[in-house]
C-alpha cells in the first residue's frame, strides 16, 4: 500500500520512455537521417566547391541540427495525449514537474544525443576544420537541452489546441534565434582563431536557469491544456 519513492517513479518514467524509443528505434534515427540528408543536399544545391562549403559548414550544421530537433519536438507529448497516458500521469501521486522532467530528459537522450554524436561527421562532410569540432560539439551540448526544455513548455501549451504546428514554430522562433546566434558565434570565433568562451558561458548560464524553471512551467501548461 506504500507509495513508491521519487527515484522509483523517476526510474519507471525514464525506463518507459526509453523502452518506447527503443521499440521505435527507427524514429530515433529519423532526426539523424534528416540531418544527414540536409547536409548532403547542400553540396548538390550549391555545387561541390570546397572553400564555399567550408565557409558555411559551421552555420549549416548548427541550423540543421536545431531544425532536426524542432522536427522531433512536436511528438513529445502528442502520442501520450492521444492514448490517454498523459491523463494517467497527471493523476498519479507523483510531482508532475519531476515526471515531465524525466520525459524531457528521455527526449533529449533519444533525439539530441544521436545528433551530437554524428555532428562531427556532418561537419566533416562540409569540410569544417577538425580543430573547430570540439567547440561545435560543446555548443551543441549546451544549446540542444535548452531547445528541449523550451520546446517542452511550448508543446505543452499547444497540446490542447488543434493548430499546434504553426504555434509551435511561431513561438519557438524568437527563442531559437538567440541560441543560434550564441552557438554560431562560438563556432565562428573558434574557426577564426578568436576566443570563444564568452558565448559558451552565456549558453551555460541560460541552460542552468531553464533546467530549474522549465519543468515547472511545463507542468502548469499541461494542466491548462488538458482542462478542455
Amino acid at each position: 500500500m506504500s507509495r513508491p519513492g521519487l527515484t522509483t517513479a523517476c526510474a519507471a518514467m525514464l525506463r518507459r520512455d526509453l523502452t518506447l524509443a527503443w521499440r521505435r528505434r527507427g524514429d530515433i534515427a529519423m532526426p539523424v537521417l534528416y540531418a544527414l540528408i540536409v547536409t548532403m543536399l547542400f553540396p548538390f544545391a550549391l555545387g561541390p566547391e570546397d572553400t564555399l562549403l567550408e565557409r558555411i559548414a559551421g552555420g549549416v550544421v548548427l541550423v540543421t541540427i536545431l531544425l532536426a530537433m524542432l522536427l522531433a519536438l512536436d511528438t513529445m507529448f502528442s502520442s501520450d495525449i492521444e492514448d490517454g497516458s498523459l491523463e494517467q500521469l497527471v493523476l498519479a501521486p507523483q510531482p508532475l514537474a519531476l515526471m515531465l522532467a524525466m520525459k524531457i530528459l528521455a527526449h533529449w537522450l533519444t533525439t539530441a544525443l544521436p545528433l551530437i554524436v554524428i555532428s562531427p561527421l556532418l561537419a566533416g562532410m562540409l569540410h569544417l576544420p577538425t580543430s573547430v569540432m570540439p567547440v561545435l560539439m560543446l555548443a551543441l551540448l549546451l544549446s540542444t537541452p535548452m531547445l528541449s526544455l523550451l520546446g517542452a513548455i511550448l508543446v505543452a501549451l499547444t497540446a490542447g489546441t488543434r493548430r499546434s504546428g504553426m504555434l509551435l514554430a511561431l513561438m519557438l522562433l524568437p527563442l531559437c534565434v538567440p541560441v543560434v546566434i550564441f552557438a554560431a558565434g562560438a563556432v565562428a570565433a573558434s574557426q577564426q582563431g578568436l576566443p570563444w568562451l564568452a558565448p559558451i558561458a552565456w549558453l551555460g548560464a541560460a541552460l542552468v536557469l531553464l533546467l530549474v524553471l522549465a519543468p515547472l512551467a511545463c507542468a502548469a501548461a499541461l494542466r491548462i491544456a488538458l482542462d478542455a
Partner: protein
Amino acid sequence: MSAALTAVPDHVILLETRALGFYRQDEPVFASLNFRLRAGELGLIEGDNGSGKTTLMRILAGLLHVDEGELYWRGQPLQREHCLGEVLFLGHQLGLKADLSPSENLQVAVGLHGYRAQTTLSAALAEVGLSGYEDEPVRRLSAGQKKRAALARLVLLPAKLWLLDEPYANLDRTGIALVNRLLEEHLARDGAALVTSHGTVSFHGGEPQRIRMHA
C-alpha cells in the same frame, strides 16, 4: 483487509458533490448535481448519450475544473494534492502505450502508484484473462483484450475510489463478470466506485446508488 476491521471510521462519506454544474459554451452540460458516495458504496451514473457522464467523471478525477458548486473529499473541500493516488480513473481512452506489452504498461503504473498489498503483476494479468499475452505489444491485442489490460490496473494498484467510464464496453460475458467481481471485491475492501454504463449491469453485491444525468 485491515480496513474491514476498522469499519466505522472508514464509512465516512468519501466523495460529495454540492450543486455541481458544468458549462460548455455557456450551455449547461449538467447542473446542480448532488450526491454522496460512502466507502464501500457503488455509484451508477446513468444517462443517455451526451448527457455528461464522461464530463462528470473527468471533473471528479480532477482533469476538468469545477465550474459551479463544490466538491468534498472525506468531508473537506477537495484539493488535488489530498486525493492524489487515492483515485483511479479509467476513461474511454485506456492509457496504454500500444508499443509496450501489457506487463510493461503495468510496470509503469506500479512505478508511479505502487502495488496494492498481496498482488503481483503476473497474477493481475492472469486474473483479467491475459495470461499468454503478457509480452505481446498492446497494438496486437483485440479491442476486448486491450480493455482487459487496462482493467488489470484495478487489480494491481492501491486506490480508494475507482472512476470507471463504461468499463463494460467491448468486453465479452466473462469480461463483464470479471468487472463485476472486481467491483464486489473492491467494495468489500471498503473501496468506493463510480461507474457509468448503458447496459443492464447485473451486479450482485447489493443495490448500487443510481445517479441520473439529465441531458
